[in-house]
């Protein structure tokens, strides 16, 4: 039973990590039906910004919790700026083009950013300081659930709930839903579609940055390539849960994380990815639009 719980919480943490990144994919897809492949790189840039800020503040002798807050704030601002700019440069000019063009542009952006960080920073792995505080009450679960696991799981849940409320009850959220349903109609009734899309990218990138700092701090190391695999898995989670749906991203992340953890724990870690992707195929066969995805009626 203890072993089961250990695996369960391990999988939950990993799933939350996927979910936090998957939210960005799913939001952008929901609004403009574009798979933003550069999203994983935004996550990586967030982590790097966090590392640089933490390094500077650490050298200046700031206390641990202040470093964490500043690192996250800096990472959010910097990554949001990147997300905003990427959309302006790489996607906006292609908005009227065939669907494949922005997709290729996104892949190009992803490769560009990876190589840019590799050249500007380093190709080596870098140690990331553990910024997350040790929570007292988590000690009772020693070995089953660590402080950083707990913080990541809670953050993901809070972010997910907040985002759902934001979309449901604010004016901007309403505009987002309208844009997602029908861009032309939204424009006709006075929604500034460009602003809505920019805001979507800014929110998605900010979440990725928060994820980047938390996860890097949890794992303890980063390099320019971390965004690729994390992005790929998060994208899988988004598709699994139903791309375009925010609770779906959360659910998809958790299902993927737990499947991987249990596959490793009870079968073999050699088959971790086999199980994860077999599950994806199965779900897509029976529910082509994902667990929470809405069946879409083809517009004529």
């Amino acid at each position: 039973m203890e072993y089961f719980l250990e695996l369960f919480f391990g999988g939950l943490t990993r799933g939350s990590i996927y979910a936090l990144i998957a939210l960005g994919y799913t939001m952008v897809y929901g609004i403009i039906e574009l798979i933003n492949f550069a999203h994983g790189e935004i996550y990586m840039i967030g982590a790097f910004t966090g590392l640089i800020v933490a390094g500077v503040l650490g050298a200046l002798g700031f206390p641990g919790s202040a470093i964490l807050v500043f690192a996250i704030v800096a990472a959010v601002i910097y990554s949001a700026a990147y997300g905003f700019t990427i959309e302006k440069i790489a996607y906006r000019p292609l908005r009227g083009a065939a669907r494949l063009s922005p997709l290729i542009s996104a892949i190009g952006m992803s490769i560009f950013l990876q190589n840019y960080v590799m050249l500007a920073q380093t190709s080596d792995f870098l140690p990331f300081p553990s910024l997350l505080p040790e929570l007292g009450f988590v000690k009772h679960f020693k070995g089953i659930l660590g402080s950083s696991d707990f913080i990541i799981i809670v953050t993901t849940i809070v972010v997910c709930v907040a985002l759902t409320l934001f979309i449901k009850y604010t004016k901007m959220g309403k505009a987002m839903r309208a844009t997602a349903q029908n861009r032309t109609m939204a424009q006709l009734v006075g929604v500034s579609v460009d602003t809505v899309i920019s805001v979507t990218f800014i929110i998605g990138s900010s979440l990725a940055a928060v994820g980047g700092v938390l996860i890097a701090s949890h794992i303890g190391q980063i390099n320019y390539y971390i965004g690729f695999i994390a992005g790929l898995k998060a994208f899988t989670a988004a598709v699994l849960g139903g791309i375009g749906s925010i609770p779906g991203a959360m659910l998809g992340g958790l299902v993927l994380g737990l499947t991987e953890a249990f596959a490793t724990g009870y079968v073999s870690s050699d088959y971790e990815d086999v199980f994860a992707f077999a599950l994806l195929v199965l779900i897509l066969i029976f529910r082509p639009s994902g667990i929470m995805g809405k069946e879409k009626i083809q517009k004529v």
Partner: protein
Amino acid sequence: MRGKLSFVLMAFALMGLLLAGCGGEDKKEAEAPAKKLILGVAGAHSGDLASYGLPTVNAAKLVAADINAKGGVLGMQVEVVAQDDQCKPEMATNAATKLMSDDVKIVLGHICSGATKAALEIYRDGKIVCMSPSATNPPLTQSGDYPNFFRTIASDDAQAMLEVEFAKKLGLKKLAVIHDKGDYGKGFAVFCKQFLEADSGMEVVLFEGVTPGAVDYSAVVQKIKNSGADGVIYGGYHPEASKIVTTMRKKGVEIPFLSDDGVKDDTFIKVAGEYAEGVYATGPRDISANPLYAVAEEAHKKEFGSDPGAFFFQAYAASQALLNAVEKAGGTDYDKVVEALRTQYVETPLGKIKFDERGDAEGVGFSVYQVKNGQYVELK
């Protein structure tokens, strides 16, 4: 009719051009009776594993500069031509093809075993001698498939044997053997498993491969914990090793962690920080007492202003061995160079070496190291 005629004429004209092209090249080859000797250097010069590949380029440059200052090899100036393969097999074959088309006869490289294996077929068919400072996959020499291959590092099974002997010395009985599913890591892990199973006092309680680059390894660490292992042997490279060790220690799993040469890298200590303390890793024997070692190190500091990196001395020795063999063979004739490598001793930072029938350097080997106060220290 006229159209057809002009087509035929044009075809002839084109063929003529092609022939002229061929003729021109023939002439050029004949004209240049190799005034310079090209030493190809292939390996990871960018990407994740660049820290393993770049020191080899430096070593080759230093040896070349040294020999050129003394008048070169048989009067030929040595030129170093580097080809990047990022440790990826598909890029290694490109690099090999490029070197072959540049008419390179001796190649120092590649760095990773998988990439080396991919490139070797091309070198074998092109009669190019290839010598790796770091590819330790045993079949590269033991299979006998690649008579053109040599190396200045001992193979993985030598390393695995030492690792298992050492585990026994530590009194470990139940071992979890983990690897990264790669040619190098899995090869090493499989040998460890074989040696462990052959020993009646020890058993393998867990044998698993992890996916390199995965977000975290907490599930596999739980599994190690649950298996009741009293020690972990890891086959692979430092990025995953540092993640696994960090996760183990954070979860309070304090059993010894033994690994291989891919982990005996300062980046591992830098990244894993305090969690690296006490980790064992096998690596090439400490050869710093050798006077030529100091010469090579000094040359590196003077030229590049830093301490040499991974496999630098193996690469230095390999460069010397290759160039020495060309000198002794009186040219770059494949059979003669191979013969010279097998019979002629050469003084290198690794000691006085020559190569056996299979292509392994005689008299090079491994030691066990442990991280103590943020540094790898050789255990004697």
